[in-house]
């Protein structure tokens, strides 16, 4: 096998790009095994005595033993991790379910205002999430509430405790709802382009074969847009997992997600860099696993062989 000799500048550029991509992660990984002293001193570079103390601090609420260096477990990583998982997974699933149906309707059905609806979904995506923050915060805290003396509200208060009316703010549902709303336009937009590629005659063949509208959708269309669903899932999961701004405003002590938890480590007096790095490494694992799993579904040429040769 003979390779063309490339310009050295080409390799220099490649190295620079790789360094830019991998560098921060390597730095984070290395620092997560350092004591804060080593990190701050800055002189040691890559030569240091590794310690898992930071990870012990981060995971203190789910470890089976009590780390020696801690007298109080302040960080509830386990709880936040589960919150993050619930919020990211549920919002991803909801976004995909609603998104694929909406996209299908926009592509296949002819109804008044279809083009407007299609365009509007994309325009909504252009609104920065920060703009949503204030109105949503107000609505979630004051408008979407169940009276604590009411039937359902009363039941929830009796079961889960707490004071005041039962509001969306501070609940998993509140955050999930806003994430779904935020990600839905883009997912609809991605899936539309996949659904357009499903040959119409496949759906017609299924209809003639005796399939009803839902059977056509679930047995023919959905399997064929799996790559699109996977791409959309990666996208949605990643955003929901990393989102900080809305989650910081809408979550409470019990529902905060991992990104919020990390920032909680900074205080006026002290920034625990080592713990932040360790938590950051832990934060990065689920999206990586999720992406590896989902990207397996992205097989190009799913519709190969459907229609003529």
């Amino acid at each position: 096998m003979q390779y063309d000799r490339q310009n050295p500048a080409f390799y220099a550029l490649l190295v620079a790009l790789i360094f830019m991509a991998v560098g921060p992660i390597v730095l984070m990984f290395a620092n997560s095994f350092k004591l804060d002293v080593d990190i701050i001193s800055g002189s040691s570079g890559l030569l240091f005595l590794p310690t898992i103390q930071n990870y012990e601090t981060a995971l203190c609420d789910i470890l089976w033993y009590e780390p020696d260096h801690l007298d109080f477990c302040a960080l509830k990583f386990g709880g936040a991790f589960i919150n993050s998982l619930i919020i990211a997974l549920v919002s991803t699933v909801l976004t995909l379910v609603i998104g694929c149906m909406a996209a299908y309707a926009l592509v296949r059905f002819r109804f008044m205002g279809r083009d407007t609806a299609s365009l509007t979904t994309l325009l909504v995506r252009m609104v920065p999430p920060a703009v949503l923050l204030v109105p949503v915060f107000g609505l979630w805290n004051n408008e979407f509430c169940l009276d604590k003396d009411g039937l359902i509200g009363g039941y929830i208060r009796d079961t889960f405790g707490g004071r005041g009316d039962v509001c969306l703010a501070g609940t998993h549902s509140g955050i999930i709802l806003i994430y779904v709303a935020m990600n839905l336009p883009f997912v609809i937009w991605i899936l539309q382009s996949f659904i357009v590629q499903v040959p119409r005659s496949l759906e017609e063949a299924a209809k003639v074969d005796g399939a009803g509208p839902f059977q056509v959708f679930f047995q023919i269309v959905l399997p064929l847009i799996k790559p699109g669903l996977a791409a959309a899932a990666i996208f949605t999961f990643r955003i929901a997992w990393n989102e900080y701004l809305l989650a910081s405003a809408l979550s409470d002590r019990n529902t905060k997600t991992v990104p919020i938890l990390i920032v909680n480590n900074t205080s006026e007096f002290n920034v625990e860099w080592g713990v932040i790095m360790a938590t950051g490494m832990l934060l990065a694992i689920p999206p990586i696993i999720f992406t590896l799993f989902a990207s397996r579904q992205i097989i190009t040429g799913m519709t190969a062989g459907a229609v003529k040769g």
Partner: protein
Amino acid sequence: MPEIRLENLVKRYGNVQVLHGIDLAMAENEFTVLVGPSGCGKSTTLRMVAGLENVSEGEIYVDGTPISHLDPKDRGLAMVFQDYALYPHMDVARNISFALRLQKRPKAEIEAKVREVADIVGLTEFLHRKPGALSGGQRQRVAMARALAKDSGIFLFDEPLSNLDAKLRGQMRAELAIMRQRVQKNMIYVTHDQIEAMTLADRIVVMHGGYIQQQGTPEELFKRPANKFVAGFLGSPPMNFLDADLQDQGGTLHAVGQGFSIALPASKAQALGRTAGAVTLGIRPSDLNFDPGAPDAAAFDLKVQVSEYIGAQSVLVCQTGGAQVTVELKSETPIALGETLRFAVRPEGLHLFDRATEAAL
């Protein structure tokens, strides 16, 4: 099996009317071919029967029951699509059994049926392949097998062979003809290929511009076309058309045009019911024969321009008085290019059409 009847079928897209009242009855176990050029409404008609297009006006009856309000799945018919429309995420067996699985038939029955139809179309060894791993001809067979598995009495084909190469198309055409003898079903077949129409059909329905031009057996349509369109559409190479005027010359009616004056046989002349007027003379290329000694009243003098050798036959492209005429001959006939030669026409090969209405006379 069932009898299908279309009554005054009309299709409109907005203000554009594409079908103008189609009346058609298809008897039991008949193989009906709808044939016509692109955009003549043949596919639309078929899709309306299948339930994939709404009926704007008129009604479709199956065994006397109106079905145009039913969903495709409730019409109990099977269809083979032009582009095969195989489900790419299912293997061949699952493609074939899709309809049966939707009907929730017992597993053993489904398996037996899949094996049976796979055997008919010769796919037994490919049952576990995905469509993507099959050749064009094999995909075509899967599409047929899928339709066969449904056990419905009505079989619809929407240009099923048009995506195959010429050799494969001929082969599949023959297989279709064999399959047609094995399975007794009412088949409607749409094609723009007149050879498929002629070889497969019990009844050909020639469509053009949203109207039925003529229907009948292939032989009827070939020998007695109802108008100039049908005459020109069926037959290959197509019929020659020459402008002519009817003239009475010494008691016999002649069709006189530029460079020819052909005497019409007495029976034909009588049937015409007119002795003058502008007509179009239609002659099939195979009805002309090289004959230097033919009399003036039964011959054309044609200047041979091109000879297209196609094996046993050759097609000569000739010129007479401004019009082009093709002649089909045995290849061994000695023909010199560029010469003007005399070709005799068989009297029964003369077709006359009114020049204005294009109807056969």
